[in-house]
């Protein structure tokens, strides 16, 4: 015989069960479940509602009234609250907020006049060829990275010097790209700078882990450089 659980019998006694009929029929034949059900009913009877005392309204009102402040509708209060805060702002904070706003407007206006394309996205990285020397710089960087990518063992001194020179010139071009608002080009050059820094500072030991880091850092960088170089060559036709 399948018995009902205590929970099911509690639900039955509280008239919250959806199986009232089956439970009732079961209780008529199962003394075990009937006993539990009776025990639940007895519990509910023992804990049935007792009398509730009558509160003293006047006394409670007097106590409450002393704590009541004078209210006003919320919308007005919020409006006043807002202006109170605005006026209470320190002058420095207000000036800072105004500066942030001006900077935002400046950047937005600049962006609006100079479309920017995502790296490796559709279309060119830049729409205006920059300094032709950048093309040479990118060309040199690409050759260096390709060479290092295919090398094994510690870096030789010539490669190190080349990396060091490229690192110095790269910093100039990063700043130039930033100041001209070409964020896509600046981003690629910054990535290149990190890789060149690794090459420049890596100790000349065969055990060094520069290869692993180099592979990680050049992931996609070479492609970006090629696209960038393509765009920055003087022969590039603007689309």
């Amino acid at each position, binding site marked *: 015989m399948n018995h009902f659980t205590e929970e099911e019998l509690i639900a039955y006694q509280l008239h919250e069960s959806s199986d009232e009929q089956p439970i009732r029929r079961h209780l008529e034949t199962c003394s075990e479940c009937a006993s539990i059900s009776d025990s639940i009913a007895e519990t509910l009877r023992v804990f049935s509602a007792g009398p509730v005392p009558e509160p003293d309204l006047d006394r409670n009102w007097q106590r409450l*009234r002393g704590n009541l402040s004078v209210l006003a509708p919320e919308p007005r209060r919020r409006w006043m609250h807002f202006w109170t805060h605005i006026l209470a702002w320190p002058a420095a904070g207000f000036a800072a907020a105004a500066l942030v706003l001006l900077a935002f407007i400046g950047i937005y206006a600049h962006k609006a006049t100079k479309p920017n394309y995502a790296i490796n996205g559709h279309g060119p990285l830049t729409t205006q060829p920059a300094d032709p020397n950048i093309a040479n710089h990118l060309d040199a960087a690409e050759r260096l990275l390709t060479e290092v990518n295919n090398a094994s063992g510690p870096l030789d001194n010539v490669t190190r010097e080349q990396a060091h020179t490229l690192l110095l010139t790269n910093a100039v071009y990063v700043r130039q790209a930033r100041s001209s608002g070409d964020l896509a080009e600046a981003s690629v050059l910054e990535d290149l700078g990190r890789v060149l820094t690794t090459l420049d500072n890596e100790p000349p030991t065969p055990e060094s882990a520069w290869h692993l880091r180099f592979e990680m850092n050049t992931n996609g960088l070479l492609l970006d450089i090629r696209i960038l170089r393509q765009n920055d060559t003087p022969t590039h036709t603007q689309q």
Partner: protein
Amino acid sequence: MDKAETEAIREVLTGNRDAYRVLMDRYFRSVFRVAFRITGNEADAEEAAQEAFLRAYNKLPGFRQDSAFSTWITRIAMNTAINLVERRNRDLSYHAPRIADEPSADESTVPVADACTGPEGILLDSEAASLRRAAMATLTPMERTAFTLRHMEDLPIAEIAAALNVPANSAKQAIFRAVGKLRRSLAPLAGGVQ
């Protein structure tokens, strides 16, 4: 919400504190009643009801009058009373009745009832009443609230669940757990749980 209530709220919001008396006269008894069921004693029920009315007053500027004030104040009262019970449980846990062979007022102990005596007779005396209070004290505030409001005040589970801000099934389970706990607490009187 009827016109008198709407008018009273409008007056309160224009700075007339005494207009709140209209709402208090209407609902303090029912709020006190709910609080009494949850807290189990008159002093705490009064404190919870007062606090509920004070909270409602302070929140009145944001009260959306498309819902009933009675439902709103009852919900606040339930939460206030539950918070009070939780606070009391933390503060008074040292003073809860403990089981001992001999009852002692000094040590707040009560004896386990004799299983040979019938439950009806035992529950009539003060020791049994203490045991009953102790049984209620084993419930969590949520179990106690859900159980008392459903069983003693006959409130629908949906309303209890809404007031406790839990799903209806959680409120129902809390009630079932409460009844189960109380039944086991009464086991010494009835000769053991079956």
